[in-house]
């Protein structure tokens, strides 16, 4: 399941984020890369324990918590503190898979990376190249979303960021552990939720079929969820 969610951050918020990022110190992006991906990663990152990354990260998490589409699709249990990166001309990130388990630095918190998220902070016309390319067995998806939009996709996929050939690409990225580990099961619960939301709006939430479907929804989560 790959889902794009528009306008997670307003344009005004995006501008605030970019201002904070412009004034921050940056480091080599390989600081958080695993052994295979450090060979193919070439970009800059805000230091993950730096003030800028933490403040912006918290603000981003607040925005995500109010996005019904994000919560419904991801069913987040634990979210890794968001990271922020910058690709200038010549930067890219070759084909890799995200580490299965990530420890949050300076804490005992560990997360299993079920889902990966990229939130775009530059508009597509500000840079050439820089597409996020996600591969599956039948081909690839190329993404270059508007600033403020995000894409959520299973961390199991191989993916890359094409080399930027002009301008600058700013983004935030992070991983999360979902309450529902299995991609197929999570997609089912998401579809069910979407159908219930739509039917409730049309028939009223007290409609007996909507009430029963809501019970099925919660009981499916009860069946599959880790909490």
């Amino acid at each position, binding site marked *: 399941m790959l889902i794009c969610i528009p306008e997670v951050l307003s344009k005004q918020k995006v501008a605030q984020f970019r201002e904070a990022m412009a004034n921050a110190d940056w480091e080599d992006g390989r600081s958080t890369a695993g052994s295979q991906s450090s060979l193919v990663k070439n970009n800059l990152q805000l230091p993950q324990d730096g003030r800028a990354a933490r403040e912006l990260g918290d603000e981003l998490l607040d925005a995500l918590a109010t996005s019904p589409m994000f919560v419904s699709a991801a069913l987040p249990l634990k979210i890794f503190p968001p990271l922020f990166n910058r690709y200038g001309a010549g930067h890219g990130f070759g084909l890799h898979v995200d580490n299965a388990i990530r420890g949050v630095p300076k804490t005992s918190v560990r997360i299993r990376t079920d889902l990966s998220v990229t939130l775009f902070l530059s508009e597509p016309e500000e840079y050439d190249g820089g597409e996020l390319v996600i591969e599956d067995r039948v081909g690839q998806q190329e993404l270059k979303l508007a600033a403020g939009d995000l894409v959520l996709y299973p961390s199991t996929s191989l993916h890359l960021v094409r080399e930027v050939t002009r301008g600058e690409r700013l983004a935030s990225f992070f991983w999360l552990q979902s309450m529902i580990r299995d991609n197929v099961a999570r997609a089912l619960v998401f579809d*069910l939720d979407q*159908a219930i939301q739509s039917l409730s709006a049309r028939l009223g939430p007290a409609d007996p079929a909507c009430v029963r479907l809501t019970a*099925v929804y919660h009981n499916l989560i009860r*069946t599959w969820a880790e909490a």
Partner: protein
Amino acid sequence: MLVHVPRALAKDEVAYFRDAMAAARWEDGASTGGANSGFVKKNEQLPPDSEVSRKLGGRLLGALLANPTFVGAAIPLRIFPPLFNRYHEGDHFDPHVDNAIRGDPLTGARIRVDLGATLFLSDPDEYDGGDLVVDDLYGSRQFKPPAGDLVLYAAGSLHMVAPVTRGVRLASFIWLQSMIRHDEARGLICDLDASIQDLAPRVGRDDPDLRKLAGVYHNLIRYWGEA
């Protein structure tokens, strides 16, 4: 799972079954009791390999497999040939759970007994006592429905037939292996199906939300189903 299926067998079919049963030879019902349940079973049974038992059994299965409520609730994979029993005054079947595995001596087929079902062939005013009592998640439930009705229950739940104190109680009982092994999972799918059946005439079969729900239904069966 505990489901009452009204009119699983039409009244004229009930009469046909009873005529055939009245003319048949009966044996002690202990012949199909397990090691654990043989002690507490006191009733009569049509010999499982007799022509009349097989013939009526086939006819009953035809009716059940054409019944959407039965099929939607049981999601049957393999059904053991139905058996037919008769309780006279003083007969009973004490609390027991059904054997987990049943082999059919005639065909050698083996099934895992997920669900049991009782089809009532006597009307309630023909006998006193003889209630089917099933322990469910929310307590014990008693059934004494009209002839032709069927009660479907988890074979693993404790159940009994209360002593008959007057008259004769005729019934058929079946065991089946469901495509969905787990009771709670099957219950969820059954509820989802019932909601879809409820919504279909109201919003139309080609409604996008209904199609999404139908997709979830089939994907849940794909997720959990054995075939």
